[in-house]
């Protein structure tokens, strides 16, 4: 059994990083928060936040899940003062986990300069205080790994995505929880997903979630398909889908979850990221980092990111490992890439070998080695309005 080391959290989960998070509760507090983080951005201090002035249950739940993510050791909340975010409720939720937490209200602190000064002082103290946190043994069955593809092209589905599928099979066989997502990029694969579900009722839920995505995108008049996908020789949504689907590997699908739902045990899960109900608030996932934030809110410690065109993003909170499917892209962007899956097309490697390499990289990053995007300082984060109904009883049949 492979053993890692992690930071013990009060809810029983363990973290592979020990970050101090600064979270703005409205866009109006974004600049002040960014200024607080800036001198400590390479010392384990990171920035997240929610831009809206109006409250939204999804956004609140996301913020609460992210602020209590196992990779987070301390949290500073920054409010302008007049926005609607339920800041005391969020602060209490964080405090109840035993994490150091503080709240600065810019309108009470005396403005930008004084809030930045006070915030930096608090951050410096927390970084110092949590630096002595002892690590404890962590099993692979305590690890949660998410996967996403972005900047996809025709090579993604032949190399990077199926290689991640190989790694997903190995990780879930070792007891890890593995989450794949974007039901809008599974349109056309419903029948393939259905026969892998552990119960017929779960299969019905999964098929319904993809049908919901199709309806949602039809109303918007635009699928999960960017012009760069076509420039990379992908022609249709269903072609992109079959390539994206390969990330899920071959194991049985144990459950269907929604953003900020935690995986109850190891195995393979589908994350439904398309909102419920009528179409509201615009596009479900305005960009890859919106989905990465949702995978992280579901507990993902590490994200495996397949790209063909060459995405360079990372993320706040959890490290992102880049698997590049296109050998031409890899040549141009290798400083940003962790794994060269394009070597498969060049005849220099195989799916199995690249899958093993992704598995090894996942363990190395979980053990503390920085991924490429992490080393380059990428800490992208985006959170917008959405709305979800709770999952039904058929979605987690083994609980």
């Amino acid at each position, binding site marked *: 059994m492979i053993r890692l080391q992690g930071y013990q959290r009060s809810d029983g989960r363990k973290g592979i990083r020990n970050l101090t998070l600064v979270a703005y509760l409205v866009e109006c507090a974004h600049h002040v928060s960014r200024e607080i983080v800036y001198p400590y951005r390479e010392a384990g201090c990171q920035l997240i936040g929610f831009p809206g002035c109006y409250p939204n249950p999804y956004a609140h739940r996301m913020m609460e899940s992210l602020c209590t993510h196992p990779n987070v050791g301390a949290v500073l909340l920054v409010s302008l003062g007049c926005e609607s975010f339920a800041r005391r409720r969020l602060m209490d939720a964080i405090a109840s986990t035993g994490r150091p937490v503080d709240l600065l209200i810019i309108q009470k602190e005396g403005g930008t300069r004084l809030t930045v000064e006070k915030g930096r002082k608090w951050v410096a103290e927390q970084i110092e205080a949590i630096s002595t946190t002892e690590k404890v043994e962590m099993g692979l069955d305590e690890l949660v790994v998410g996967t996403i593809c972005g900047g996809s092209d025709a*090579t993604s589905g032949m190399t990077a995505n199926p290689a991640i599928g190989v790694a997903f099979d190995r990780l879930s066989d070792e007891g890890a929880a593995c989450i794949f997502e974007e039901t809008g990029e599974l349109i056309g694969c419903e029948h393939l997903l259905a026969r892998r579900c552990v119960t017929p009722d779960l299969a019905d839920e999964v098929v319904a979630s993809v049908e919901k995505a199709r309806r949602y995108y039809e109303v918007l008049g635009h*699928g999960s398909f960017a012009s760069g996908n076509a420039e990379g020789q992908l022609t249709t949504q269903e072609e992109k889908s079959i390539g994206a689907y390969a990330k899920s590997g071959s194991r049985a699908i144990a459950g269907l979850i929604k953003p900020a739902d935690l995986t109850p045990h190891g195995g393979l899960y589908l994350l439904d990221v398309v909102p419920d109900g009528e179409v509201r608030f615009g596009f479900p996932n305005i960009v890859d980092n919106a989905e990465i934030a949702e995978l992280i809110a579901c507990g993902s410690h590490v994200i495996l990111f397949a790209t063909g065109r060459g995405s360079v993003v990372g993320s706040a909170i959890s490290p992102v490992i880049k698997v590049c499917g296109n050998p031409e892209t890899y040549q141009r962007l290798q400083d940003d890439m962790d794994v060269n899956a394009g070597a498969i097309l060049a005849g220099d490697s195989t799916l199995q070998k690249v899958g093993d390499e992704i598995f090894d990289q996942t363990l190395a990053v979980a053990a503390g080695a920085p991924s490429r995007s992490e080393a380059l300082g990428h800490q992208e984060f985006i959170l917008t309005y959405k709305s979800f109904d709770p999952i039904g009883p058929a979605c987690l049949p083994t609980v």
Partner: protein
Amino acid sequence: MIDVLQIHPNDNVCVAVRPLPAGWQVQCAGVTFVLPEAVPIGAKIALARMRGGDKVLKFGEPIGSLTADVEPGRHVHTHNLESDYLHTYRRGELVSGGRWVDP
């Protein structure tokens, strides 16, 4: 070094695993043909003569319907293949139906 790959035995297209020039002779799945035009890495190339309305199979699964007849060796992409689910957006096209200029 191989030029193209038929991903699944049922596929009626193969995929270029590197850029291939016009006039290049390709052998795949028992068919031999000459490429009428250069294709980039990842391009789909017809393996058989197909009619407009026929389903294109890749990974053994339908990925859309042809909008024009194709001969073996022909590049299959947005100019002759359409989704059976959702319209494929391209840069310069306005979602609501108008057009943006994007030189």
